[in-house]
């Protein structure tokens, strides 16, 4: 160590750097690490020491259903978001950059608009006597209002809308890096548009789909506002359950345990993504 330092004397400035980093490290410890540890501590100490909170959460059918529902909604939202975002991202990737910047601006602007406002807007649109149902009934497509709110449909529509920018942005980056000439080459090689998409465009865009998909999935797992407003009681998500445990039941131990399980799952997924991305780089692809 000291030999190493002496050999690089004059260039190694790690100690000085560490000193400079200290305030940031303290900040992170104080506001991020300590609360998580406190959370973990509460989950195994309240109301009494032991793992009974975890046992209750993982053993009880009602809680298990909430977990299952959380993953179902997150997965559904991720899939629909990918399906909607892909064509939009592809158009943004190939259109003239001036026009693309304008559309990017619109997408970003929607991200900056208050989340609650956007969710209430969906309530106005989706409810029984909402704009969508009334329009469809007026033009005679349906006789009865469609159940678009307070159920899985409502949650999915609302959340996909919120999540789209998080999928589109990384995907456009990946798609822009693909040389359009590659697709022309595939076409001349005899690939139909579908074959060119399946065998060339899709595999080449997978890193972007994976990055955006993971972000959307993880964000969806812990989402609160949209499911609470657009969802129904029968498909409660984890964040709502935690809110109920803490606010209504004042059961901090159980709430902490649920939050901690969510954190562990999220971190595991993130680690998996890093692993897969790393493997791709190792094999020399993209």
């Amino acid at each position, binding site marked *: 160590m000291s030999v190493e330092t002496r050999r690089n004397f004059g260039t190694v400035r790690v100690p000085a750097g560490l000193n400079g980093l200290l305030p940031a490290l303290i900040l992170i410890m104080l506001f991020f690490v300590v609360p998580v540890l406190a959370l973990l501590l509460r989950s195994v100490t309240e109301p009494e020491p032991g793992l009974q909170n975890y046992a209750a959460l993982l053993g009880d059918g009602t809680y298990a259903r909430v977990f299952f529902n959380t993953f179902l909604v997150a997965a559904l939202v991720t899939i629909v978001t990918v399906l909607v975002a892909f064509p939009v991202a592809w158009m943004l990737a190939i259109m003239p950059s001036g026009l693309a910047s304008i559309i990017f601006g619109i997408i970003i602007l929607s991200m900056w608009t208050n989340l609650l406002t956007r969710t209430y807007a969906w309530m106005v649109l989706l409810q029984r006597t909402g704009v969508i149902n009334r329009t469809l009934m007026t033009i005679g497509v349906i006789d009865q209002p469609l159940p678009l709110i307070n159920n899985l449909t409502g949650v999915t529509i609302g959340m996909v809308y919120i999540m789209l920018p998080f999928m589109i942005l990384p995907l456009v980056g990946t798609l822009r890096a693909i040389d359009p000439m590659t697709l*022309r*080459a595939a076409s*001349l090689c*005899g690939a139909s548009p579908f074959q060119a998409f399946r065998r060339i465009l899709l595999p*080449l865009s997978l890193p972007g789909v994976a990055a955006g998909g993971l972000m959307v999935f993880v964000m969806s797992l812990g989402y609160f506002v949209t499911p609470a407003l657009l969802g129904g009681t029968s498909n409660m998500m984890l964040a709502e359950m935690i809110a109920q445990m803490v606010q209504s039941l004042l059961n901090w131990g159980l709430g902490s345990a649920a939050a901690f399980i969510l954190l562990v799952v999220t971190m595991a997924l993130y680690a998996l993504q890093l692993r897969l991305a790393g493997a791709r780089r190792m094999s020399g692809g993209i």
Partner: protein
Amino acid sequence: MTHPFLSIRNLRKAFGAIVAVHDVTLDIPRGEFLTFLGPSGSGKSTTLYAIAGFQDPSSGDVLLEEKSLLAVPSHKRNIGMVFQRYTLFPHLTVAENVAFPLRVRRRSDAEVKKKVADMLALVRLESFAGRLPGALSGGQQQRVALARALAYDPPILLMDEPLSALDKKLREEIQGEIRRIHRETGVTILYVTHDQEEALHLSDRIALFKDGRIEQTGTGEDLYLRPATDFVAGFIGNSNFLAAEHLDTINGTATIRMTDGSVISGVRPNGTFGKGQKTRLMIRPEAFSMERSPASAELNVEIVDIAFYGERRRIVARIAAGQEVDIRPTSAAMQSQGVSPCSRQVFFDPATAFLFPA
């Protein structure tokens, strides 16, 4: 009457108000190596893209064995193409890239395997089958692209400036490969380049493009020795254009008066000129010699500089009117003495000099 193998008929392509290709008509026999040569923006790539099916022409037709290609989408045209940039599929290995056109055609595994091996042998990259394109040099990537384009035995191979991204040494090496592969496969090749040396080296015939039209079609020798226009003369090889006044044309040879008053007979007129019309005389730098011969005409010049370029010398000279003349006699024809500025006569055979309108 035999019909042409590939026929381009009155092709025109306009992008809004900009006309990229005005009117191109060309017949290409089977097995020919034809090069579209021209400066950038001359319409040569646009013509190639119309054959590939990337851009629909505004009017005109492209016929392969008398059947129009225009209604056929590009993935059904069965045409091979090598692009300017490397367009290999980065996520597939070299072997998978070459196999791609066969896989989308649903050929059997055994056939794909054999064909891929044959193609990699053709471009001499057998040992690279398992590599990803990113691990290959530019030259190797273009050879894989060539193998991929030929894997399905297309009747026509299009090449769009395939060597422009490579350095000079690699370019020459791959030019040799392309000639060999053309010889061995007999495929009809349409090759686009702006590099006249590349065109002369590779092609059976050259179509020289200018402003969306073909200026002249012919062998490299035709274009070099018998340029149809001053543009061809200026684009192929090096040329001097000297101002001259046309005096008379008799039996296909013209007599002219140079700016210093000297009269030269026996030059070849390109077009018909009236008496006293202003013209330009084109003389190749290597057509000059330093010794008088019976048929030669002479030109009075002042030598400005002499440089040794191996087999030839390069002389910068100036005529009385002040215009510089590029003269390249063989090194053996002239001793290196007399480097200092001096006035003297240089000679050329008038039959190798062409008269063009001013």
